[in-house]
């Protein structure tokens, strides 16, 4: 049995495609075997909903009268600085941006109440956001200052462009030191007080197609409640990581750069995040459809939590000092049970990524496809695979 995306799309248009979520697929394969299920199923939907700092938004505000050149000046949205090194009224606001006067970690651990991720959440929720500009005057752009209110429907374009989302597997963070630490993986209590993870495991998109056989440049996806696309491979892309026999990377592997129209998105699937002692971020909802083109793809998509292992890493000393030490490996079934065994100790677990929301996303994407509203795309080109030798380097500091 081999199917093509064109054939699957024909079935979707006729309302005849068979679509299941990755969670449903796992169940079916356990009961009926991959061979039989692969023939039956056309599309498997996946989902994830977690903080992804490498996210942000391009905005074009339109021109004021008289004109103002924001490019090269300073631009703030609700007090949060946006990057203005672009044309006159284009800016980019990153998820991790903080107001200039945020105390950051001077009052340790900092609260990080509001930042770029929250601006994006406010915009997508239709709220009014304060725009302030301070810049220099030119003959064609005479205005030097501006202060006004905008909302999403006022601006020309609002393009969410996230250079790195959707990590294929992630570390489980613990703290071996004697004091509480505040990290991007949450609050970690001393001496293995807790273990935090951040992946939807068996629902997570890139764990379901570990070699990116069906996902590439141009793949249409669910992004933040609207339709988006895979825009490139993500930054820190690392297909060459060590993998288990089933293809699952032993450490964080591939990533995706994603793009989509914010005006289609919903605040339920894009949320600002405050990470005490660390900073702000954006919680992004992503769902990727996997066409079941053959049995092998079905087998990968059916890999359950029990067979997806994540490395446990100490965030008090090893992570900050780039030591590649892995304290142990645990699978997502163990992580989701609420406790793991580590170094002879029972350690309670918590997740930063929401499995409940990931499941909701996979179900919504399934509905879209069943209703014929969402067709699959053929990728325009493949991303580098493990055989390419593509990997990611660290920064060497030199004089």
């Amino acid at each position, binding site marked *: 049995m081999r199917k093509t995306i064109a054939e699957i799309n024909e079935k979707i248009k006729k309302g005849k495609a068979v679509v299941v979520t990755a969670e449903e697929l796992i169940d079916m394969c356990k009961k009926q075997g991959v061979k039989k299920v692969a023939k039956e199923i056309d599309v498997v939907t996946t989902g994830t*909903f*977690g*903080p992804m700092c490498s996210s942000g938004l391009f905005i074009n505000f339109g021109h004021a009268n008289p004109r103002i050149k924001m490019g090269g000046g300073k631009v703030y949205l609700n007090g949060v600085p946006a990057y203005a090194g672009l044309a006159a009224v284009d800016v980019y606001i990153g998820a991790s941006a903080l107001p200039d006067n945020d105390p950051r970690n001077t009052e340790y*651990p900092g*609260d990080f109440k509001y930042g770029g991720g929250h601006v994006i959440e406010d915009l997508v929720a239709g709220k009014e956001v304060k725009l302030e500009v301070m810049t220099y005057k030119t003959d064609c752009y005479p205005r030097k200052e501006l202060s006004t209110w905008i909302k999403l429907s006022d601006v020309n374009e609002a393009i969410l462009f996230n250079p790195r989302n959707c990590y294929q597997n992630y570390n489980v963070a613990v703290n071996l030191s004697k*004091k*509480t630490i505040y990290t991007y993986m*949450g*609050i970690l*209590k*001393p001496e293995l*007080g*807790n*273990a*935090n993870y951040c992946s939807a495991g068996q629902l997570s998109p890139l764990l379901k197609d570990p070699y990116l056989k069906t996902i590439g440049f141009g793949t249409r996806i669910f992004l933040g409640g609207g339709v988006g696309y895979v825009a490139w491979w993500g930054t820190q892309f690392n297909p060459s990581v060590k993998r288990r026999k089933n293809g699952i990377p032993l450490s964080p592997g591939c990533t995706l750069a994603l793009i989509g129209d914010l005006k289609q998105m919903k605040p339920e699937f894009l*949320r*600002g*995040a*405050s*990470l*005490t002692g660390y900073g702000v*971020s954006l*919680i992004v909802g992503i769902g990727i459809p996997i066409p079941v083109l053959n049995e092998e793809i079905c087998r990968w998509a059916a890999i359950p939590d029990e067979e997806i292992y994540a490395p446990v890493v100490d965030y008090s000393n090893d992570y900050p000092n780039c030591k590649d030490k892995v304290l142990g490996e645990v699978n997502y079934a163990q992580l989701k049970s*609420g406790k793991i065994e580590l170094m002879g100790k029972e350690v*309670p*677990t*918590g*997740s*930063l*990524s*929401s*499995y*409940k*929301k990931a*499941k909701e996303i996979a179900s919504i994407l399934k509905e879209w496809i069943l209703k014929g509203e969402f067709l699959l795309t053929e990728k325009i080109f493949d991303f580098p695979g493990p055989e390419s030798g593509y990997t990611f380097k660290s920064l060497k500091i030199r004089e």
Partner: protein
Amino acid sequence: MEEKLVLHFPPTLIDKPIISDLVRKYDLHFNILKAYITPEEEGNLVLELKGEEKNLNSAIEELKNMGVKVQSIKSDVKMIEERCIHCTVCIPLCPVGAIYFEKETESVKFNPEKCIACGICIKACPTKAMVLTI
């Protein structure tokens, strides 16, 4: 009269027999619900105090004068359900299991009865779903 209190002891007072002295002096009954030391070395004691109203109030007054921060558990922690994304990251941090995962609904739930208002979940929640209401 009965009151549920959280007492925050500065490090200098941690090893003093303050409670047993007070209980004797004002003829109170007490029940310790939870005792722990924060990373900042502040001693926290959650307890129920029972006794005559005026004695209870004098005891609380005396604690405050000694530099102990007294917080009534009526000043409470609340979960704003619409803000909760059910991530679970707060669960292992709660010292009394007041936040828990409900398997049937795959949701994170909050039991205000058990909560001792320690505030750690407020720091831990990325979406500010846990808040202090006074």
